[in-house]
């Protein structure tokens, strides 16, 4: 059946309850913003020295970059997972600087960029959260705002470049310790060429109630984004960090290789929420890892919709007794997309526990994979882990796979793994349509129900935004 305008309007109303943005216009646009500085294509030692010089970095960081570059040139591409042979590292801009320098208040933000932000609905989100906003525009953080009382509490929320200058000692202690450059080729690339990202430090005992959030956006053709995020939650502290990514559509491929390092100290709690919606020409190859100390809690909530290929396996290293970690993820693969996502939980200490819940949806020939590693080392006595991965397939052209790996070297552990694959059935669609829903409404409703257990973990605005993004993906996809 053809969908009429009314159907579409109503669907949007239903799925966008509480949001006033026109999401169809929100994505796939590219604003004219003059790039002030562009080091051209390709990466070399000279380019890295130049990046470091432009950032006024000291030798410590320059050396880290150069070491990482060496690792990058020597390391092979991953031998498993999706095909990455189309990435041409010589055809990528590794450093682009847009607009003027970092602005600290909304008034200082250049007009062109504000317009982009308007389309992204950022001011709205800011009003609602009254929280710190760190927005990465191109490789540079333009707009950065942190509520005053947090500064008074000693909370640091800065772009990573600025943070390095102000707090080098924290970098010496934690930077690259959680994800070393040698971890994988893309972590090495990031460590060599990184720019921007968020740095968060929460002092002992401080509980930040309102989420800290950052919006990311690539807006230059062929520009790789290599942001570097480092979060340190000191003993007994709590923080929720949210990143939402949207990107305009370009004709040539674009690379996003971020590294996120999270240190959860004793009794601390960190939640890191991501909504990823890169345009479908982006390679999204991200290394995310958290180290969790005694009785600490780390939660990754990871929602991936966009990109050409995503490879992302947020990991949790439970290094001290009582540490707990969770990875909740949603992946949606539409036409031409491969979402290879999963999780890693490494139990090193006794009484550690982890929960991994993954939900994936594929349609129009898209492919999703769950790739997981669960490791329980000798000495991780009484460790517990529960892995659930569910896949929903919307049509016969789409495909889903599961690659779980369990390495257990300790006898006294509890481990469960459940996996399910379901198809949206004709009968479910018939049932919902017989109550007056259009084919798309019916399919979108089934998908919304499928991811509901993870959706309810998201802040309301983000859940609504995610719903809207999924709904956009569903348009015209069934029947």
């Amino acid at each position, binding site marked *: *059946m053809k969908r009429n305008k*009314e*159907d579409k309007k*109503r669907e949007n109303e*239903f799925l966008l*309850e509480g949001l006033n943005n026109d999401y169809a216009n929100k994505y796939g646009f590219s604003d004219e913003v003059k790039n002030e500085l562009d080091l051209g294509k390709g990466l070399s030692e000279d380019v890295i020295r130049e990046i470091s010089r432009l950032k006024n970095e000291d030798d410590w960081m320059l050396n880290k970059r150069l070491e990482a570059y060496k690792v990058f040139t020597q390391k092979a591409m991953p031998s498993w997972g999706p095909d990455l042979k189309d990435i041409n590292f010589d055809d990528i801009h590794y450093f682009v600087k847009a607009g003027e320098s970092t602005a600290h208040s909304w008034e200082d933000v250049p007009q062109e960029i504000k317009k982009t932000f308007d389309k992204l609905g950022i001011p709205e989100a800011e009003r609602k959260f009254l929280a710190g906003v760190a927005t990465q525009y191109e490789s540079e953080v333009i707009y950065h705002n942190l509520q005053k009382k947090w500064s008074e509490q000693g909370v640091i929320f800065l772009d990573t470049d600025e943070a390095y200058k102000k707090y080098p000692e924290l970098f010496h202690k934690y930077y690259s310790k959680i994800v070393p450059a040698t971890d994988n080729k893309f972590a090495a690339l990031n460590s060599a060429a990184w720019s921007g990202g968020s740095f968060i430090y929460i002092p002992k005992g401080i509980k930040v109630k309102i989420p800290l959030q950052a919006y990311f956006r690539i807006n230059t053709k062929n520009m790789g984004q290599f942001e570097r995020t480092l979060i340190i939650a000191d003993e007994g502290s709590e923080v929720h960090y949210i990143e939402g990514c949207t990107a305009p559509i370009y004709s040539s491929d674009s690379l996003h290789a971020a590294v996120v390092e999270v240190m959860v100290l004793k009794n601390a709690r960190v939640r890191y929420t991501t909504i990823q919606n890169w345009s479908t020409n982006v390679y999204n190859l991200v290394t995310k890892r958290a180290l969790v100390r005694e009785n600490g809690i780390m939660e990754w909530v990871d929602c991936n919709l966009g990109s050409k290929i995503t490879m992302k396996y947020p990991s949790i290293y439970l290094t001290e007794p009582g540490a707990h970690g969770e990875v909740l993820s949603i992946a949606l693969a539409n036409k031409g997309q491969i979402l290879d996502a999963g999780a890693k939980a490494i139990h090193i200490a006794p009484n550690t526990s982890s929960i991994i819940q993954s939900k994936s949806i594929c349609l129009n020939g898209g492919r999703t994979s769950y790739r997981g590693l669960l490791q329980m080392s000798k000495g991780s006595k009484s460790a517990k882990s529960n892995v659930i991965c569910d896949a929903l397939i919307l049509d016969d052209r789409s495909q889903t796979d599961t690659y779980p790996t369990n390495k257990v070297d300790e006898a006294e552990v509890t481990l469960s793994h459940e996996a399910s694959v379901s198809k949206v*059935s004709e*009968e*479910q669609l*018939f*049932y*919902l*349509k*017989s*109550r*007056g*829903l*259009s*084919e798309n*409404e019916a399919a979108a*409703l*089934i998908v*919304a*129900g*499928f*991811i*509901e*257990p993870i959706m309810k973990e998201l802040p309301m605005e983000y859940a609504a935004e995610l719903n809207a993004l999924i709904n956009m993906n569903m348009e015209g996809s069934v029947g």
Partner: protein
Amino acid sequence: MLKVENLTCQIADRVILKDLDLEIKKGEISVLMGPNGSGKSTLAKLLMGHPECEISKGKIIFQGKNITELDVTERARKGIFLAFQHPLEIPGVNFRSYLRLAFNSMRSKKEQLPVFKFRNLLQEKAKLFNIPDKLLNRNLNEGLSGGEKKKMEILQMAILNPKLAILDETDSGLDIDALAIVFENIAKLKSQNPDLSVLIITHYHKVFTYLKPDRVNIIYHGTIVETGDAALLDKIEKNGYKQYEEK
């Protein structure tokens, strides 16, 4: 209200319904009875627009319009409702939100209801039908008992307010108490809407203590072999369907 003319359909070359004629008048309670495998459920689904049975001949007229080619959604929006024999579970989908979406899909902008008004309407109907509030907060049919599912089907019917309700073995799988509640509710609904046409598909006569049929249709080997008033029920009760075999 509804007229099926000379309808023949098949599933993968197997003829399921053959030269079938059926008429349902406005406000009437009609019954469709027949042995297992005679085509009752196929006809119910076909009237709703299910594509599994391919129509090779004949047509379906609803309120004077040929709806043979219409999609399921459009038929629903024209006022046809099918209460499923086995309502489907849709995990994670909240009943209230779903039903409001369905309700609004059938109405013009002006008649659509916002969340709170719809909530009131739903609660009012649920109360009338003795359906506890906690059932309204559940997900659509997820984990409900057979009886609860049927109660919720009739509640959906009451909210969506169709012109023609097809009850596909709504009595099946219900214990005697649940059966009483479900069919009393249908009777309530019918008394509130005298123009509502109902087609009851059933094997059992028990339901007729709650709903008195105006017309009885006997389906046998995919075709209507006899139509009559309520007296026909007694004849079936006495002689079964064997009598049609010779014909």
